[in-house]
């Protein structure tokens, strides 16, 4: 199994979620993070402009079987893209074991 971690724009979340559902990926976990990268955001507070590189982003963590990785990545790449700097990243890492808490199912059986 692989863990796909996608760091995306918050404003793209709904689109990404629907694209994933359309591909049958109905299981994942997400949370909000700040990202430091190429995108700059201009804020002003009491006359002080501060261009911050800290941008609000959302991380999706999706664990899937190896065979599905490519299709999920493709879905993410297309649905999360605006083409502007700051669209985010996708990182793939290995998951050695997975359990479903409810009934102790393991691995493949635990993912859905």
């Amino acid at each position, binding site marked *: 199994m692989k863990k796909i971690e996608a760091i995306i724009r918050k*404003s793209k979340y*709904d689109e990404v979620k629907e694209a994933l559902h359309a591909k049958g990926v109905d299981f994942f976990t997400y949370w909000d993070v700040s990202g430091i990268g190429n995108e700059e*955001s*201009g*804020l*002003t*507070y009491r006359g002080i*402009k501060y261009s911050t590189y800290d941008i609000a982003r959302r991380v999706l963590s999706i664990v899937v079987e190896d065979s599905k990785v490519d299709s999920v990545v493709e879905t993410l790449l297309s649905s999360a893209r*605006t083409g502007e700097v700051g669209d985010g990243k996708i990182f793939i890492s290995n998951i050695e074991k997975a359990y479903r808490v409810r009934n102790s199912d393991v691995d493949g059986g635990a993912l859905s």
Partner: protein
Amino acid sequence: MEVLNFTVNNLWMMISIFLVFIMHLGFACLESGMTRGKNTVNILFKNVIILAIGLLTYTILGFSLMYPGEAFAGDWFGFAGFGVPVADADVTPEYGDMTKWTDFLFQAMFAATAATIVSGAVAERIKLWPFFIFSILYVAFIYPIVGMWKWGGGWLHTLDTPFYDFAGSTLVHSVGGWAALVAIFLLGSRIGKYKDGKTFAIAGHNMPLATIGVFLLWFGWFGFNGGSVLSADPAGVSKVLVTTCLAAAAGTVSAFLVSYIMYKNFDLSMALNGILAGLVGITAGADQMGILDSIWIGLVAGAIVVFGIALLDKLKLDDPVGAIPVHLFCGIWGTLAVGIFGDLAGGKQIVSQLVGIATIGGICVVASFIIIGGLKALGGIRVPEEEELVGLDRSEHGMLAYPDFRMDDH
């Protein structure tokens, strides 16, 4: 003695000013609480600026348009000249039950309310400049001209059976409500609200803030309705306070129960809207109703607001805070109720009420269409899609509402 009487009446009216003033904070809290956290600075900003603009335009010409004087009795339009000149006699009992300063400021505080009602309905997607331009024009011209028809002694006031609107179910609330209706029709719904024929919930971000807002509005309504007696007359004012509170209480209970029956949940936002429904409903006839009348009016208003919210969603008209069910639907209901309940009830009164509702509705809709439609044609009134998704705070203001909020431990 006369002077002392004048002092007391004036004192009460000044207090009413403070109360109506605080309604602006009520609106700001309610509207920002019921919308998303990414648009909070935007809503607050609109409410702050509208109040300032409203006070200034009312000073420049609103007051003169709305109360042009006896010379224009029965007319459709009048104007007493720019500014608010205050002669020596205007601060004595000669002027009436209060000084002209008091009179002016009380009316000025009312004026900004109409635009504030709109700001809730168009929230989360309207551009700032078009909104300000609309607000200035609406508060400077439409609100006072329509107000003149009745409160300024105009034609609705001199009908055989005069149209009756004690504190403004129609003259204030519906005037705001109609503009809100036109505005959201022209603006379209927020992204994600209606999709594939289904309605989605877009929950507000801060229910305590919304609750503070509604309580402050009720608090302010003591002055809105109570002050509309225009003197400290004990019998008159205290009766108005009782009818106002009972209608609000009845509106709460009925919105609570109706929404509980319909949706099987205890919906705080419905109960809050129920309070406002009762308050708007009683406003037109607060001085004409008895205890039972008020309770009936409130009960019906509370139900109207629940059904009204559902109706708008059916029509795909997106009103994030329920401004239209509360201010327009209950405003109409309250105005009609004057013909149905209380001391003025009767067929002729109902006709007059309908005439008032229809003509005022007509001009408000037309004016709003022209102004907002014009702005839409000229430069657009809606923020670009990307800005709406990101939120107006970031895109229009470059500021966030909670930039350094901490919840250290979970």
